[in-house]
């Protein structure tokens, strides 16, 4: 199997800006499937952020978790955290380093992300894609959606029975998926 230099969940880069509703979505975990066709020596996570139309001073923390799935339980394999203060409104890359060295093996992995901020609703946006279709959800086992329990961090394990599929009753954070790039 090849050794990769990068993995991105949306390689076509045709992204949409989602302004985050601070009140409803803090502490929610977005979970989605990403296939790894090769191995990756995991060092850095990158996302694209844009503060809202009014320059606002405040803080933002993003938490990224890499999870594996065994039967009906997700297990945390690695994580990375990002914190900054905003006082401008330019689109920018945000990069954050992993908590542990890991050569991610090929196969199914799950990207999980949540955030916390004190900037209020609509003053922070992240680029990504809408995944959910509007009128119902998918059949078969869980592979994308959100964790139904609000949490301040990344749990060591998550039961798929506690997850809401995209297109179900997921919040906006569960239906919209951030663009995420991992690099070696």
């Amino acid at each position: 199997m090849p050794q990769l230099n990068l993995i991105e969940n949306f390689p076509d880069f045709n992204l949409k800006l989602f302004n985050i509703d601070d009140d409803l979505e803090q502490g929610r975990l977005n979970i989605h499937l990403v296939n790894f066709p090769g191995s990756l020596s995991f060092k850095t996570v990158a996302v694209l952020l844009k503060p809202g139309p009014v320059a606002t001073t405040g803080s933002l923390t993003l938490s990224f978790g890499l999870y594996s799935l065994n039967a009906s339980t997700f297990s945390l394999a690695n994580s990375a955290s990002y914190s900054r203060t905003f006082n401008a409104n330019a689109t920018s890359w945000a990069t954050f380093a992993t908590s542990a060295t890991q050569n991610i093996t090929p196969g199914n992995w799950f990207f999980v992300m949540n955030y916390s901020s004190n900037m209020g609703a609509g003053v922070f946006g992240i680029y990504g894609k809408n995944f959910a279709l509007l009128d119902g959800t998918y059949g078969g086992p869980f592979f994308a959606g959100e964790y139904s329990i609000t949490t301040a961090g990344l749990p060591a394990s998550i039961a798929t029975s506690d997850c809401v599929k995209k297109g179900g009753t997921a919040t906006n954070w569960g239906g919209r998926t951030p663009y995420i790039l991992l690099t070696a």
Partner: protein
Amino acid sequence: MPQLSFQQNYNHMPSFSNAISQGTLSFIPFNIDDSISFKTLNVGMEVTLSSLGNISFTLSLGLYSLTGNSVSLANSISLSRSSNNGLGATTSQLYISATATSATQNITPGTWFWGIVGTSNASLLGDAAWSLYIGSLTNAGNAFPGGFIGGRMTASTNALPESYATSDLDITGNDAMGVPYILLSS
């Protein structure tokens, strides 16, 4: 080789919809990164309902292997749905899924092809329509100048052939080459 739980051709639901032409069978490529036990299949569809009556449709998907210049049927699955709208034409965005494969199969890694053909009563309902969500509407004016990457039968059919010669396929234009979102899960 480790087993996969999921295999999808896009990590997101694409936003372009491509109308399904009744009785037209298309072959699209699908890479399987590692072995997967074929149990459930999901596609994304856009369905425009009709004020004239219920729309019903059946989508048949065949899993084909490619040997030389011929694709051969290894498995199949059928997705059916009937959507009721008595209040006027509206558009629904749906996941359609099915689990009844024609055979138990642990699909091996490599490039496979899906043969996709559908039937519906949409043509009887005036304003009804049904489409699959595909990755791109890019419409190349010439045929792909390399090995087989998919194409569409020019002869009308409602059934999945046991085998088909790739040289007999239309391989030009996004109507023949558009690739819909497909997710397999074990």
